């Protein structure tokens, strides 16, 4: 007796996009970071493009699977780092859910990316504060981390914007 797993087109699409996001995630994890918690978050670009092209549920799958598989590959699965990434990803996916209820065309990639980056950083920070280092000195890092989130969220958004332009130009003959 054999069982066949039927996968849909959506599954394949999610798998491809997640693979891309994981590659970026892993490449980025090799970069040195000036402060714990600060990194460009370029995998966010893939989430934003998935959101705009295929809708929120694809984007949510890609973001959450990326954190899960990325952590297994890097070796941080179930470590504090993983808890922080997961909290960030869940928060950014939740914020994108709210933002994607807005009328189509209200937010562009930059808006989505910024909202996601801010939510990710804020959730990550407060998780770190409540769970791991409940010391007031940690609060001094919060403005710096949020500044980084604004900068990198905007940069990721602009990259997503340019990528989407390229995709549209490539799609239309």
């Amino acid at each position, binding site marked *: 007796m054999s069982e066949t797993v039927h996968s849909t087109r959506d599954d394949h699409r999610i798998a491809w996009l997640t693979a891309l996001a994981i590659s970026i995630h892993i490449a980025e994890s090799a970069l040195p970071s000036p402060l714990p918690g600060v990194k460009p978050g370029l995998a966010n670009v893939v989430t934003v493009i998935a959101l705009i092209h295929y809708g929120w549920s694809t984007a949510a799958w890609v973001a959450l699977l990326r954190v899960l598989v990325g952590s297994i590959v890097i070796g941080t699965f179930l470590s504090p780092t993983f808890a922080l990434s997961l909290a960030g990803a869940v928060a950014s996916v939740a914020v994108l859910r709210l933002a994607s209820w807005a009328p189509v*065309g209200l937010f562009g990639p930059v808006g989505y990316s910024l909202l996601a980056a801010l939510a990710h950083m804020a959730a990550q920070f407060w998780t770190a504060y409540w769970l791991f280092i409940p010391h007031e*000195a940690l609060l001094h890092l919060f*403005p710096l981390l949020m500044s980084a989130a*604004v900068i990198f969220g905007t940069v990721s958004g602009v990259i997503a914007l340019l990528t989407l332009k390229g995709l549209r130009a490539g799609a239309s003959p």
Partner: protein
Amino acid sequence: MTRADWLVLLLAIALLPVLYTKYWGAGGPADRARIAANGQAPLEIPLSRNQQLHIHGPLGDSVLEVKDGRARFLSSPCPGQQCVHSGWLARAGDLAACLPNGITLSLQGARPRFDSINF
């Protein structure tokens, strides 16, 4: 970029100065100094009264000074003198330590925090 994108960006940038003033502004005011020495129960003293304390450690006596709501290591018999060079502590959460002499001095604010952290 859409108008909403610009709005999000402007709001995000406007948020940053608020965060910096909130989290980088003066830390909570301190009203007590907590002095912990090796093998002795921690001592809490109010910052409202100016005084000098001689705290005994393995190397000898460290002199701590409380003055005008601030506290510092005035002198210590340790070789490195890092504790003395930490200078005046004024805000809640500030901390100076003399590890060779086993003495830490930290300022406490009105808001109780936590007893210890375990990892």
